[in-house]
């Protein structure tokens, strides 16, 4: 499903258009289905969708906020997509992004002497290393012990939250506030909000996300490593026979996925917040799963899916005060119903198989008669 194996009928363009169409249908159906739940609360689902749309795209500020939320989702979506390509399921993007953000904050607080371009380089390196390590643990456990990565990454999420809490509260706590957060990062680490969004905290990190999609696309489709990853993802036995080191692929794929997820928090830590806040992630790691699924593991489609879910997240935030009973939790429900619709994609195949079978029985009946 995710590998998107090209069928022998029709060109690549037709295939891509068909997939895009299917994705759009899944999104529309998912949004309608999820929104229809609000009817229980006595709301008009179409009205809810209208509020969502208006508050996600209404003004440059709204749009900027949507992109601000989309930024971490690009990274986590890419992370999940990389693992998908290797046939692995990275539910641990949440923990990886937490530790990545924490590492960037620690560097930003301690390495005050480093000047501007190098400071950012250092923060990126720290974030990627932390994520690389955290993803790599799950990869090693999978490759050497057969431990299912879904279980280990979920558990590592909890452990990461514990580490983040300890480091924040016991080592780098900002004592000037009651909030559980680290000291602010040095000025040389700070990212400025882009002025075109009229005050929204959107920073250059969004464009880093787009660049990351390019790099991931290159790695997956143009590098030897990516070839190995995709081979293992499509068929482990075949990859083994072809002489690919499956274990190494599993370890490196999880580690690289972790490194990419590690970058997800930078826009917040170096940008709007300027520090690491405990619990800053609105489950970006889990939303990344939805993003990657909708994008079918295609790096550039991840950008679009991330913007969609970022917009949903921003739009849903306004539901809290624009409606009586519907809360921002609707965003999660909408994501779930979009994934369910993507899963229900099998309906198309079932219909097609049904038609084909009917046609073939008709032909058989004809030739027999």
């Amino acid at each position, binding site marked *: 499903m995710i590998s998107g194996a090209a069928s022998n009928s029709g060109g690549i363009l037709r295939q891509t258009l068909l997939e895009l169409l299917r994705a759009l249908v899944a999104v529309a159906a998912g949004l309608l289905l999820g929104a229809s739940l609000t009817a229980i609360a006595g709301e008009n689902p179409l009205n809810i969708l209208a509020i969502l749309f208006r508050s996600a795209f209404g003004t440059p500020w709204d749009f900027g906020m949507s992109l601000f939320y989309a930024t971490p989702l690009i990274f986590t979506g890419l992370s999940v997509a990389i693992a998908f390509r290797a046939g692995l399921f990275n539910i641990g993007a949440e923990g990886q992004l937490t530790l990545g953000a924490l590492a960037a904050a620690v560097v930003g607080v301690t390495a005050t002497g480093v000047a501007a371009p190098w400071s950012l380089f250092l923060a990126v390196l720290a974030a990627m290393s932390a994520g690389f390590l955290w993803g790599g643990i799950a990869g090693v*456990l999978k490759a050497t012990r057969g431990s299912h990565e879904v279980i280990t990454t979920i558990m590592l999420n909890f452990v990461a939250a514990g580490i983040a809490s300890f480091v924040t509260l016991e080592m780098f706590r900002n004592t000037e506030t009651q909030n559980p957060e680290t000291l602010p990062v040095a000025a040389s680490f700070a990212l400025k909000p882009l002025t075109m969004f009229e005050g929204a905290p959107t920073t250059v990190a969004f464009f880093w996300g787009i660049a990351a999609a390019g790099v991931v696309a290159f790695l997956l489709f143009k590098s030897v490593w990516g070839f190995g990853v995709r081979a293992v993802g499509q068929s482990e036995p075949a990859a083994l026979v072809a002489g690919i080191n499956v274990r190494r692929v599993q370890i490196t794929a999880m580690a690289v996925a972790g490194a990419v997820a590690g970058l997800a928090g930078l826009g917040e830590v170096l940008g709007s917040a300027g520090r690491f806040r405990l619990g800053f992630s609105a489950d970006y790691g889990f939303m990344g799963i939805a993003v990657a699924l909708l994008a079918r593991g295609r790096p550039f489609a991840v950008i679009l899916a991330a913007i969609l879910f970022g917009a949903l997240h921003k739009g849903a935030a306004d539901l809290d005060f624009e409606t009586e009973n519907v809360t921002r939790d609707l965003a999660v429900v909408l994501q779930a119903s979009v994934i369910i619709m993507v899963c229900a994609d099998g309906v198309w195949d079932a219909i097609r198989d049904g038609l084909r079978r009917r046609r073939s029985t008709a032909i058989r009946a004809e030739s027999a008669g």
Partner: protein
Amino acid sequence: MTWEILLQILASTARMSIPLLFAAMAGIIAERSGVINIALEGFILFGAFFAALVTLSSGSPWVGLVAAMLAGSLVATLYAILVVWLRADQIVAGTAINLLAFGSTPLIGKIAFGSGGSSPAIELADRFQYEPIILGILLVVIVHLWLHRTTSGLWLQFAGEHPEALECAGVKVRRLRTIAVIVSGATAAAGGALLSIWLSSSFARGMSAGRGFMALAAVVFGRWMPIPTALACLLFGFTDALQMRLQGATLPRMTEPLPVQVIQVLPYLATIVVLAAFVGRAYAPRALGRPA
């Protein structure tokens, strides 16, 4: 360490392991039939929510428990349609169910309780006291006997090992798996119910706290067999009990209590270690994750 503390930890172990036990048995039922059940976490959460909701309005934990099981089987039906009939990727569909649970429980909670985060407190008299412990033990025995002593139990095992053979013998594998997933959903939701109407006094957002995944780890640890899996649940329950006991406690030769974060991650670390210590794949049902 005095006897009193030891007894306390043992009692606490029993309490912490029972919800996990329900979820793990649910995992065995689904996985033995050949369906991966990542959605356990979601079933637990739905169960916890609806148990609290219905117990609050009915005043009886038993009614709440049944409501939770009904809700669990309803959501499990959706999961079964996706994975058994539409052949969706089981892990992906399971994740969707989990997300649905995380998002919709506070959403409905806001309508039902006026607060998305948690339910009002359930009175002590309306909560379970010791009954779940008996139910849990019964459950293990029943699942064990079902799998090994009944025809339908053998069918279930075959559906997970060799579905083609079962189909040849005239048993509808898809229907069997559908039933297994629904029973699994109801069982896991019952475990969830125990979280809100037994272990604590209300529903709280995300109160499943990874138990669905821990249960899956226990299933791997127990090699998909009920009794060893139950022992694994006891082990996890013990780390949980130990974790609660150690909070704020000072260990010998240490001047300060251990940081609370270090203690809180103990059950999760234990899960990873246990999972890594046992190579799971060799024992898994052979057709696990393969649509029929």
